[in-house]
């Protein structure tokens, strides 16, 4: 192989370089650190103020909710869950792409992940933070739920949790997921925090210094570090699959027609990846432009994500079809009615919004032109985000509003509090994300350098030249 000493241009044609331009180690460090080190731009302040305002609206709405009760939302009997759990599942789903990119693609040695994994992991965390509002605040008495849901040893009550309940599984799954994602993200950040520390002075140096734990890049440290990173990736992979599986158990374990189905775990996981990648695209297309990181987050990265969206979108579409087929094929009349009712009942608009956004829109990614056009993929990703929200709403509300006994059927309409709380969670998410891009390296500097080193080797010695 060494005979085919290829020049860099040739390499670029065969496998497009993941780091564009004349990047050096130094320039990678500079490009990424510069975002944090330069004076805060006015645009950031505007965006941040707006996000904080929206996040504060969420805080206000939640305070109002806690003060007066779930009745301030539109939930009713029979629709006991509505926007609350819809939003929860939606946000948790969005979180999945981050873990997927950082863990699964890491295990598959997909080097293209390095430019986006940091931001995607951050997105996971912030999405989980937004999602986590709901399991707590959707309860009628959150001030009790906050500690009665966890197995705290207690002598005054002698009470424990019911470990048969999927909601209790959820408590464990979501808190584990949040914790492990945070750890994973933090471990990845340590060397880069050290980079920022070494470039900073004064208080900033102390702060970055404390959080980088005194990282000094010793070979003996890298050895444990790489092992830890790989184990975390290995743990996160089944974890991320389990989280949405368990979220889907909230429905699948119930006896409600439309919920009680074995297809839910894979269907939910695929949907989560689908929506997560859509959100990564939404954020990254904006971020790479705003932060001038086009040479690090390249079209190649975006195109790969579009391919993942196309694939998972088709899995999701297939699941929609299977659900309908099984409802008919099973001969369960309640099940069949539920599905016919989804498509043609009072919530038909939600169902067809879901189908259009989730099944039809991703089909454009069959075309390379669409996969490589930033505006097109941005708009498509927004549609997919909307479609996936509708998917959860369709599953939750349409199954609940007409179940077994027609005498108990009802209809759900959201209130302003529902709507404002949801918008508020977006504010929370954006606030955290803006803080992230302002104070932390948005790209995994040391990892990109690792890739750069390998590409340099390729450039110097040709494919497979080293070793």
């Amino acid at each position, binding site marked *: 192989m060494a005979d085919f000493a290829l020049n860099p241009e040739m390499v670029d044609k065969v496998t497009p370089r993941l780091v564009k331009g004349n990047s050096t180690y130094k320039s990678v460090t500079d490009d990424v650190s510069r975002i944090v080190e330069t004076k805060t731009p006015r645009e950031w302040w505007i965006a941040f103020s707006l996000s904080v305002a929206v996040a504060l609206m969420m805080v206000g709405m939640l305070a109002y909710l806690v003060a007066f009760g779930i009745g301030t939302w539109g939930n009713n009997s029979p629709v006991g869950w509505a926007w609350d759990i819809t939003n929860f599942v939606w946000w948790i789903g969005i979180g999945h792409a981050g873990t997927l990119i950082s863990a699964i693609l890491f295990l598959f040695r997909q080097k293209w992940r390095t430019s986006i994994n940091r931001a995607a992991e951050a997105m996971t965390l912030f999405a989980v933070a937004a999602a986590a509002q709901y399991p707590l605040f959707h309860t009628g008495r959150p001030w009790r739920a906050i500690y009665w849901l966890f197995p705290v040893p*207690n*002598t*005054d*009550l*002698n009470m424990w949790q019911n470990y048969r309940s999927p909601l209790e599984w959820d408590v464990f799954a979501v808190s584990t997921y949040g914790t492990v994602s945070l750890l994973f993200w933090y471990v990845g950040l340590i060397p880069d925090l050290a980079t920022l*520390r070494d470039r900073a002075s004064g208080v900033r*140096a*102390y702060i970055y*210094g404390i959080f980088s734990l*005194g990282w000094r890049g010793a070979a003996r440290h890298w050895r444990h570090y790489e092992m830890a990173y790989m184990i975390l990736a290995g743990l996160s992979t089944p974890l991320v699959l389990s989280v949405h599986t368990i979220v889907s158990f909230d429905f699948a374990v119930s006896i409600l027609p439309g919920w009680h189905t074995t297809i839910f775990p894979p269907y939910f996981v695929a949907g989560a990846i689908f929506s997560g990648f859509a959100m990564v695209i939404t954020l990254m297309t904006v971020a790479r432009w705003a932060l001038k990181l086009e040479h690090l987050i390249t079209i190649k990265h975006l195109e790969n994500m579009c391919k993942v969206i196309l694939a998972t979108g088709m899995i999701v579409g297939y699941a929609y079809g299977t659900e309908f087929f099984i409802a008919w094929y099973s001969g369960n009349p309640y099940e069949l009615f539920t599905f016919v009712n989804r498509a043609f009942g009072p919530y038909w608009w939600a169902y067809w919004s879901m189908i259009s956004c989730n099944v039809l829109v991703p089909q454009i990614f069959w075309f390379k032109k669409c996969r490589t056009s930033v505006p097109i993929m941005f708009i498509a990703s927004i549609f997919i985000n909307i479609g996936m929200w509708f998917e959860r709403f369709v599953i939750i509300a349409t199954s609940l509003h007409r179940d077994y006994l027609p005498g108990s059927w009802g209809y759900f309409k959201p209130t302003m509090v529902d709507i404002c709380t949801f918008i508020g969670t977006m504010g929370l998410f954006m606030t955290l994300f803006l803080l992230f891009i302002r104070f932390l390296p948005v790209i995994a500097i040391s990892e990109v350098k690792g890739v750069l080193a390998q590409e340099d080797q390729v450039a110097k010695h040709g494919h497979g030249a080293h070793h």
Partner: protein
Amino acid sequence: MPIFSKKHDLIARALAAFVAVGALSGIAAYTYFSHPKVIDVGYQPKQPVPYSHKLHAGDLGMDCRYCHNTVEKAAFAAIPPTETCMNCHAQVKPESPYLQPVRDSYATGKPVEWLKIHQLPDYVFFNHSAHVTAGVSCVSCHGRVDQMIEVKQVEPLSMGWCLECHRNPAANIRPAELVTNLAWQPDRDPAEIGREIIAQKKIAPPVNCSGCHR
């Protein structure tokens, strides 16, 4: 020059240890101090009348049921009307200044406002008659009231504490006629006596939720 000196490392470690120890002891303290055993046990408010249970129930040997007469019949162990006090105190110490509120109450018809010591939450439905007829003595929950000048709470009255006995009642079961004998000391193991009575009376305390919460 390095950002942190050797001294910093020491400070950091000391700080970490301090925070860890502080957090742990904080949790421990909170767990301890928020427990009903600590919060409620020992509650001894000042009553409007300096009534001594020790004098009446202990020294004079009055039966609990002379005043708390509904304890075998009802959920609630009645606090006696002023009338009951005056049955004796019309003759006994009729001039005592301590009894002024009692005499006032009797004369005006306005009740004496006693402070409640043994308080259960509204969602707990405790029934005295069910316990007393089973042979659970007053002393099991209220302690040696016959030795208290002013009554105080001696047991936590927490759910865990209730359940302890509901699950394993033998130690607290005695012949029903002895329930008000607070000083009862059997010549053999009380739990053994309890077990015999349990078998004979078929005592099976509920441990399911609606046993107490309705």
